[in-house]
């Protein structure tokens, strides 16, 4: 079994199943903060998928996209928490 077959038949299915499990939490999350961290985790799990895919296709250019995605995940989480706190403040002022 070569490296590419191993990555294709074992690593990628496990990553896909974990992505599916995180998506389940995104759907059933009882609070909105659960959904926010599920979104964050989906992007971080996508980083791993991009890294494995760049090995499989022998294209290191995909790692640039991984860097940008890491930036966007952090910005998204911070923006969500900022607006959640702001929403609570405005509700209590009324």
């Amino acid at each position, binding site marked *: 079994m070569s*490296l590419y077959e*191993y*990555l294709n038949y*074992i*690593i990628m299915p*496990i*990553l896909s*199943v*974990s*992505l599916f*499990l*995180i998506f*389940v*939490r995104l759907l059933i999350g009882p*609070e909105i*903060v*659960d959904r*926010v*961290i*599920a979104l*964050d*985790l989906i992007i*971080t*799990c996508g*980083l*791993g998928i991009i*890294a*494995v895919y*760049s*090995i499989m296709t022998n294209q*290191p250019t995909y*790692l*640039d996209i*991984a*860097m940008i995605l*890491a*930036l966007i*995940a*952090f910005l998204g*989480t*911070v923006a*969500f*928490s*900022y607006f*959640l*706190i702001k*929403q*609570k*403040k405005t509700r*209590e002022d009324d």
Partner: protein
Amino acid sequence: MTEWIIIFLSTVGTLFIFLAAVGLVRMPDFYLRVSVTTKAVTLGVGLVLVSAAIYFNDISVTSRVTAIILFLFLTAPVAAHVITRAAYFTGTKLWKRSIIDDLKGRYEDKTISLEEEEDVSESSPSSKNNSTTQESPSEQDSSEDS
């Protein structure tokens, strides 16, 4: 030889990511889920990225991977802290079998700022009524966490 190192690193990293995904579904509480998110997934993605760096064996790819891992290690704890703080202030319940809630009754509900510790307020009496400004919660939070 290099192939076996790549296989080992990517397998361990993928297992960490998978365990984190299972923990995100199975954990009973938001705060426990956040701890799973921060630790296990950061380690797993870091290991998978290191295996990509070993595969390409190029200085530009290695520097790129190092930048991504450094950025992840810097931002994951900060993002987890900020979202957990927002969750606590918006009233997310703890698990019913949680024992300790250190923040209970120690923050004012209106202004969302932590009350000061007693020794701090005694030593600096002028800084008692500053909880209405925007900057005061973050400052007091950082002093609480350190």
